């Protein structure tokens, strides 16, 4: 027959977190890893319930109760801080001499390893704890790499979207952005005004001073338009020298009349380029959403602004007109003249 010391020597190696308690609940032996969790405690002679708070099963209040749990899962925690939670299972010793309780950390192992400075020597070689720690750490590293990738992709997506809605030469919105904004305003029932602006004499600048001069003029025009409008308005370049300005929340022609005058005057200020002055002007036509019956259609409003613009061109350029019923765009000989 083995002595108790010989027996516990074997158990130490196989399950280093065990306890041997007698029928009265007093502890006689504790495994080496368990002792490491409370290095200053004497263990021997203390009772199980002094050290541990048994959480489940709830009906266990005494050593007699505890013995009846044989084979089922126990949940407990240390009474004193750190109150590491433990799982356990009890096996009664023969002859009513108490029980052997084997413990493990369960999911609390991550904190336990940190709190108690455990090493792989504290776990039995057959215990999968080390593999689990490896896996947690490997997955965290892989997850972090994935998260970083997601962040970069999201940044790239925002930049790509921004680019998809931006006219690269002027930094203004493009036609696609304008379509989105019109759809949003119409959908929300917000009043707005739509101004179609077309540059006059721009083709001459391009033809005589070159495309680089033309680009410089377009950039200057974009700046003027941004300066003359509010932060909440949208300025979009929708063609070579065509622009659309959307004024959100505007249903008052007077405001727009003054603004268009100021805009055209500013656009007529010559733009210096390569020692020369580039002179252009602009014509503009405007319509208001409040003039249109519901349901408002973006295409119809664009068409109205367009007709007003061509009426302004026909009337001698460098001016602004509001849309009126009966305006016509397609008068062949005039259309041919206004190829600015």
């Amino acid at each position, binding site marked *: 027959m083995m002595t108790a010391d010989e027996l516990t020597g074997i158990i130490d190696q196989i399950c280093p977190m065990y306890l041997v308690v007698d029928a009265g609940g007093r502890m006689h032996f504790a495994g080496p890893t368990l002792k490491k969790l409370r290095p200053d405690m004497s263990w021997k002679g203390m009772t199980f319930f002094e050290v541990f708070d048994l959480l489940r099963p709830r009906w266990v209040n005494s050593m007699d109760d505890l013995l009846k749990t044989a084979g089922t899962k126990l949940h407990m925690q240390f009474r004193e801080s750190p109150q590491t939670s433990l799982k356990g299972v009890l096996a009664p010793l023969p002859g009513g001499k108490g029980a052997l309780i084997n413990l493990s950390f369960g999911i609390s192992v991550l904190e*336990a390893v*940190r709190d108690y*400075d455990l*090493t792989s*020597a504290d776990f039995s070689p057959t215990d999968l704890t080390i593999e689990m720690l*490896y896996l947690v*750490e*490997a997955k965290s590293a892989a997850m972090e790499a994935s998260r970083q990738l997601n962040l970069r992709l999201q940044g790239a997506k925002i930049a790509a979207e921004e680019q998809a809605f931006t006219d690269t030469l002027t930094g203004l919105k493009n036609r696609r952005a304008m379509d989105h904004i019109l759809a949003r305003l119409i959908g929300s029932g917000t009043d707005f005004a739509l101004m179609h602006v077309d540059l006059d004499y721009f083709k001459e600048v391009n033809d005589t001073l070159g495309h680089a001069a033309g680009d410089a003029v377009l950039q200057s025009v974009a700046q003027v338009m941004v300066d003359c409008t509010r932060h909440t308005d949208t300025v979009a370049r929708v063609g070579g020298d065509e622009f659309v300005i959307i004024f959100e929340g505007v249903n008052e022609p007077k405001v727009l009349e003054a603004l268009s005058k100021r805009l055209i005057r500013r656009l007529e200020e010559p733009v210096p380029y390569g020692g020369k002055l580039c002179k252009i002007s602009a014509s503009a036509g405007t319509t208001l959403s409040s003039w249109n019956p519901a349901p408002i259609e973006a295409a119809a409003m664009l068409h109205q602004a367009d007709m007003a613009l061509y009426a302004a061109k026909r009337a001698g350029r460098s001016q602004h007109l509001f849309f009126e019923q009966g305006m016509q765009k397609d008068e062949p000989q005039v259309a041919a003249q206004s190829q600015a």
Partner: protein
Amino acid sequence: MHGLINRAIQAFVVSTYGEERWSHIMDTADLGFAQFEAMLFYTEEQSNKMLAAMEKQLERPLPEILEDTGTFLVSNPQVEALRRLLRFGGVNYVEFLHSLDDLPDRARLAVADLHLPAIELVENSPGQFDLVCQPGLPGFAHVLMGVLRAMADDYGDLVILDHRGTQDGAEVISITLVETDFAEGRTFDLGAHAL
């Protein structure tokens, strides 16, 4: 080739030679992008172009660069995670060497689509090993050399490594353990990593 491997090489070059050299390498490789993503996949051709460009730009033999990459992966604090994962393999260097047989499986546990060639440790006599590295990832044996060397330092052991060339298609690295506890190794706390 898995993005993690390409990215590891990128991290080594950027950290050792600087961002600018890496940009030159990627310009020469002409892949249309400048950064590898760890969690994406790249073709063999893309990786090979990058490796060829790197060899040309750094003016060093590729095996040497790859070995330094292996050392970097273990010893640089930037990539502490990998060193920690390798240290889970064993409490001493010999145990670590034996754990290398499981390395491809362990790698796959962490990143399911990361396939490393099979490696097998043969113990010829106490302290004398051959590591047989199966084909599948050109240059992997050289990276492993660097890893083995750096891990020996990590455990504080002195080893001699020798790339023995190719036998039956597999590359063989001979490992001679000269002295254990030759120097103070780096500490390894199981739970030191903030999760």
